[in-house]
């Protein structure tokens, strides 16, 4: 049976209000916002959605793999309720602030440990560090071809036909299997979850692996030296005056021309 592994990262909700986002500059990491539950990185949800679309039409098994310092079980249960067959957590206190090179190595080791696979799906980049590297590491370490920024995948005769989003259209790329495919928002959002499915998923055990189950070592290839807020707060806002909205519009045009912006 066709097997798809979807790598999903749990991140600080990227849709959280800007005003709530704080950086701990000393420790070079964001302060987890109080009262904002973590979520799957949105592109990883797109990847899962594409896997489930394939599962809708052909017999296939979807396994979700999520690694981190702490992976909340409840989020993985959501993936199961959406239609994934299995979920595996790879969790270790040491998996804190790993660089993409170490992350890819751990995920590749975990995928090797899982049974045979035909496709590995990831998001194009995670919504926290936006590195956009991990997919490539998995593909290279497992010696698979990769197709990036996909919006749809069809399977036929032991190959996958991938619609790849490029700036001026859609490329159609055929790849041998096994292959890695990375996804973007063009896939569409992850399907909703029904209450009965969620209740059923809550009863499922989710296997948990640790560092000792996967070989892991810090790569030391990249180092985060500083994490800081972009200078946006200091923008001096000039609000155009006007007794009516139309007049404000006229004044806005005058102002922009005076500043030589047009």
């Amino acid at each position: 049976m066709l097997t798809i592994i979807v790598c999903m990262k749990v991140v600080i909700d990227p849709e959280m209000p800007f005003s709530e986002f704080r950086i701990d500059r000393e420790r070079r990491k964001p302060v987890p916002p109080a009262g904002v539950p973590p979520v799957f990185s949105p592109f990883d949800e797109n990847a899962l959605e594409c896997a489930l679309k394939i599962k809708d039409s052909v017999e296939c098994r979807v396994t979700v793999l999520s690694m981190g310092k702490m992976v909340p079980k409840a989020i993985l249960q959501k993936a199961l309720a959406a239609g994934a067959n299995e979920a595996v957590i790879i969790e270790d206190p040491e998996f804190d602030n790993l660089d993409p090179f170490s992350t890819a190595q751990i995920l590749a080791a975990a995928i090797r440990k899982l049974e045979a696979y035909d496709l590995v799906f990831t998001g194009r980049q995670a919504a926290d560090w936006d590195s956009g590297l991990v997919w490539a590491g998995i593909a290279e370490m497992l010696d698979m071809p990769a197709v990036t920024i996909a919006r749809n995948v069809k399977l036929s005769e032991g190959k996958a036909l991938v619609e790849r989003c490029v700036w001026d259209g859609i490329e159609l790329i055929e790849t041998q299997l096994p292959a890695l495919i990375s996804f973007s928002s063009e896939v569409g959002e992850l399907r909703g979850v029904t209450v009965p499915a969620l209740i059923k998923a809550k009863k499922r055990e989710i296997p948990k692996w640790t560092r000792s189950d996967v070989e892991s070592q810090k790569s030391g290839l990249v180092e985060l030296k500083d994490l800081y807020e972009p200078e946006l707060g200091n923008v001096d806002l000039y609000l155009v005056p006007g007794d009516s909205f139309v007049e404000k519009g006229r004044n806005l045009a005058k102002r922009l021309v005076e500043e030589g912006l047009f």
Partner: protein
Amino acid sequence: MDDRGCLLVFGELEKDDLSSMTAQLMRAGGQLAKNMGRELCLLFIGSASSEAAMKGYGYGADRVMTADDPHLETYLADSFLQPLEQIVRELGPAIVLFGHNDRGFDLAPRLAFRLKAGAILDCVELEPSNDSGLVNFVKPVFGGKALGRFSCSGPPRIASIREGAFEPADFDKSKRGEVLPLSLALDESRIRTRFVGKTTDENLSAALSLTSAKIVVSGGRGLKDKEGVSIIRETADLLGGAIGGSRPVVDNGWLPSSLQVGLTGKKVSPHVYIAVGISGSLQHMAGCLKSKTIVAINCDQSAPIFRLSRIGAVGDYRQILEGFNAEIRNIKEGGMITQNG
């Protein structure tokens, strides 16, 4: 490995010239190369006319190289990566720069893993550094909520650069040189993918002008309906600019997804970005924060967009743009505006 190597730019051509992205890489790489006292090398993979490739010298390259093979006629990462890996291994550059575009974010990460080299994508600044990292790479993280300064161990260090982060390098047509063709040995069995075909986006010309326009008028949820798109289009046309939109506008089907500005869409950096009915979510701002001037038109004065804009107008956007357009027409008749675009 010897870390005194050159700075290598992965080049792309557009018609008979360097692509705008590549010209920007020549600026970014040129500054670094000068700082570090290194050679600036430019490489074109795939069919490149030597006349066009030679222009690389005009943009400041010390050496321009081409690598061509029948397998490289259409772009496939599997085929492009082979010569790229060979050449980088032989040349031993200290730094390799890509544009952060369809090819750059497809190739740079895999090249990095093949060479066991550090990589940072989507950089907006490159800062020379005195330590062994040679350079610090600054990139937006957390959807643009923060910036990270990274160093990479090398050689090589691999980076992709965000479009618009650097001005294109100046072109000096008197500078010419010899384009060096490199010989390749491609292993066909390692090409595991096949290019089947391509459909071009029907909104291509609009998407094209969006990323290159000096003025962008962009609409958000506050447009309220599809009609609003025609209103911002009118303003954009008057200014010789392009239109774009935030995700809700695309989700509602008012604009095609190729015109979406934001983290998941186009990243634009025009001289003037006019945000109409856009609240200023991080997802959206990640796509336009590099604009020189952000102008906000919004009925809600507490919207975050006003904290990120230099000039704002609070009120009904239809009436504001009505007055705005009328005044622009006026001024145009007076001959004070030269068409920009």
